[in-house]
């Protein structure tokens, strides 16, 4: 923002007060006139006599107030803009301010004149109305600049002096009314009158001084408040943007996407030309761009690998500096300042990406303006870089953990697979025929190993799911489509066990928020279980219908061995298998239903079971649409 513009905006902010007070003054005048007439009425009531000059004066005030109202309606910036008086004052043009000032002066001068007349007609300097000049000065102090306030203070004192002079001179007396003989002597002795005048004039001047001092102090505080609120506003905007940035980084499941999000957001938040993340190689000698935003391809390629020994600014960061600001004019920081200048960069700031003391990369922002980074900018960048580093580290740890689990599973399964493959060669007779007992033994070996393989698979699947910091991003998936892909597999399993499998799928089912993989896990485990625990000749039915809540109801019913009631509560516990299940089938990891339950948790679905021993079981899952 241009400083000149900021100043104008600030002045307008304070002048808004003047503009708001102008109609208030008009409203106040209506009240004064009303009270004045009421006072005259009271005089008539008590003394059966009307103070006519005062009533004429009040009528005059009434007239000019009407005129002011009309003028205000034409001048009012709020009305013409169709806005309320608490709107942003920035739309008030500077040239309008002059008109408002003139309008304010006109009102105050006329009021002063009217007040002097009222004082004159109500007993001169001895009139109780004389005290009202104080209010006048206060009003002036509120509305107009300090100089004007003093000016009016002096004017009021002079006017009162004039009254005293008139009162004492040939033009005396004033028009005395109800207090002429009752309360105040209008023709009191000159000394008394002069003392009264001196006291009043002093009070006027002191009031002018107090009001202006108070106003100046308030204005200074107001200005400070305005500055603070602007700073607060700016930092609030930045922090909100930073929060959005962290949130976006938090849902990334790939390092590249995370860093791209960081550079793009950082450049946007700080309003700079470009941003980059460079990561250190394993030898801690070279930096490579891992993500850039706003930098040209040529520049990125020319700096594909940065030797930190040759780049002072990067070396400073790797060596532990909290930040380093580079100005392109100070050439000593850069090995190739021409490249940077060509890119349109005038200054840049580099910060470490680190977790605790370990620096693993450099976070850079590039500005087209020279020396454009203030201390608060630097502080903010540091916060941003630290949060980005934490997010990168968090994701890497998660990816490494998953990678380790997968690798461990692979190492466990490789020998298993080799043995199973060899057993299959034996069993299928590739190495010559076996007798029945040999074949049976080999088959048993094979089955046990396949079970172990399945167990490793399920364990891996569960561990990865529990390791994942971010659940898979859900999107709209049609369950029937996923089921269709899997159905041939289930049909062949059912055929092999002479079980009838029936799919009943309603037309026009809504899509659910899920992923293909989660639904695959859910369907495979539920249906395989049903097939596994149903004796040959039985029936498995899979129904997909719409439930009352508009979601999907998945029902898998079998005519299998059933689940004993006492096992219901432990059905979804790891490695748990009901006794009758163990007796019926050796194959079972005790993890299938755990995977089903955790999948449903992720899909915000529910599951319920009903079963009768020897008759079969029904699993009902409800999934929100």
């Amino acid at each position, binding site marked *: 923002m241009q400083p000149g513009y900021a100043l104008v905006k600030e002045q307008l902010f304070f002048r808004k007060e003047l503009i708001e007070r102008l109609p208030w003054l008009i409203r106040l005048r209506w009240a004064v006139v009303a009270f004045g007439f009421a006072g005259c009425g009271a005089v008539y009531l008590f003394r059966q006599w009307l103070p006519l000059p005062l009533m004429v004066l009040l009528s005059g005030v009434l007239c000019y107030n009407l005129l002011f109202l009309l003028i205000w309606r034409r001048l009012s910036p709020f009305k013409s803009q169709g806005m309320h008086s608490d709107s942003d004052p920035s739309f008030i043009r500077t040239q309008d301010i002059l008109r408002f000032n003139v309008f304010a002066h006109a009102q105050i001068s006329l009021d002063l004149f009217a007040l002097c007349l009222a004082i004159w007609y109500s007993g001169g300097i001895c009139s109780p109305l004389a005290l009202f000049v104080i209010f006048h000065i206060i009003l002036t102090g509120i509305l107009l600049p300090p100089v004007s306030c003093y000016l009016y203070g002096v004017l009021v004192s002079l006017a009162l002096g004039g009254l005293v002079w008139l009162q004492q001179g040939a033009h005396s007396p004033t028009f005395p009314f109800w207090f002429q003989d009752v309360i105040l002597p209008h023709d009191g002795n000159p000394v008394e009158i002069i003392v009264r005048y001196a006291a009043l004039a002093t009070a006027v001047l002191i009031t002018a001084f107090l009001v202006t001092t108070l106003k100046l102090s308030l204005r200074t505080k107001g200005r400070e408040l305005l500055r603070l609120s602007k700073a607060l506003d700016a930092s609030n905007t930045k922090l909100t943007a930073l929060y959005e940035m962290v949130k976006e980084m938090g849902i990334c499941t790939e390092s590249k996407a995370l860093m791209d999000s960081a550079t793009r957001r950082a450049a946007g938040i700080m309003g700079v030309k470009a941003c980059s993340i460079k990561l250190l190689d394993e030898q801690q000698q070279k930096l490579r761009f891992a993500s850039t935003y706003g930098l040209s391809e040529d520049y990125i390629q020319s700096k594909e690998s940065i030797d930190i020994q040759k780049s002072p600014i990067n070396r400073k960061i790797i060596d532990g500096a909290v930040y380093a600001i580079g100005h392109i004019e100070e050439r000593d920081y850069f090995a190739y300042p021409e490249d940077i200048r060509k890119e349109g960069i005038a200054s840049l700031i580099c910060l470490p990406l680190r977790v605790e003391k370990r620096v693993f990369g450099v976070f850079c922002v590039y500005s087209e303006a020279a020396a454009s980074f203030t201390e608060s900018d630097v502080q903010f960048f540091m916060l941003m870089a630290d949060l980005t580093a934490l997010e990168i580290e968090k994701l890497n740890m998660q990816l490494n953990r998953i990678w380790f689990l997968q*690798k461990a*599973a*692979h190492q466990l399964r490789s020998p298993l697979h080799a043995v*199973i493959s060899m057993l*299959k060669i034996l069993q299928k007779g590739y190495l010559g025929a076996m007798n029945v007992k040999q074949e049976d033994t080999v088959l048993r070996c094979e089955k046990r190993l396949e079970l172990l393989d399945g167990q490793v698979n399920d364990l*891996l699947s569960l561990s990865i799911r529990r390791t994942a910091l971010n659940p898979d991003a859900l999107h709209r998936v049609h369950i029937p489509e996923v089921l269709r892909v899997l159905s041939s597999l289930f049909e062949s399993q059912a055929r092999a066990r002479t079980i009838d499998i029936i799919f009943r799928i309603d037309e026009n089912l809504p899509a659910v928020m899920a992923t293909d993989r989660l639904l695959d896990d859910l369907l495979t485990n539920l249906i395989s279980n049903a097939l596994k625990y149903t004796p040959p000749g039985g029936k498995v039915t899979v129904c997909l219908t719409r439930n009352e809540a508009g979601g999907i109801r998945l029902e898998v019913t079998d005519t299998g061995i059933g689940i004993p009631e006492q096992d219901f509560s432990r059905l979804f516990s790891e490695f748990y298998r009901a006794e009758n299940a163990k007796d019926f089938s050796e194959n079972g990891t005790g993890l299938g239903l755990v995977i089903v339950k955790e999948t449903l948790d992720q899909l915000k679905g529910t599951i319920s079971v009903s079963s009768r021993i020897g008759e079969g079981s029904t699993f009902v899952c409800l999934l929100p649409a």
Partner: protein
Amino acid sequence: MGGVADILVIDDDKDLVESMRIILESRQYGVRVAYNGKQGYEKIEAKIPDLIILDVMMATDTDGFDLAYKLKHQPEHQNIPIIMATSFPQKMAEEGPEKFQHILGESWPISHFIEKPIDPEDLLIVIEKILTEHKMETTQLSA
């Protein structure tokens, strides 16, 4: 079909390689073997095989993928059908570590993905299918 095709098996598990040799030789396929990506590439350079059966994790985690990727970018090798054999279930390899992501997708050169343990009959069916398809393609190209 069979008999004439030259199949190169690249896998660091010698027991598995021997199993595959037994299965393939039962159909009179010519079998050559290699135990890592580098050895495999040397054998391919020596003589282009009709089909490669390739393990994923060998000398390095991505040895198999690296070799497949390299072959894909060499005009003389990019048409060799490859069967990728892995102990990772396929869906895990697709969704898993990002190291694989850049290789999968558009430029994916693999003809088929099989999960270990290898079922002899399934393997033979897949091989036959791929060789037939490949033969048809090359015939069409030369015609």
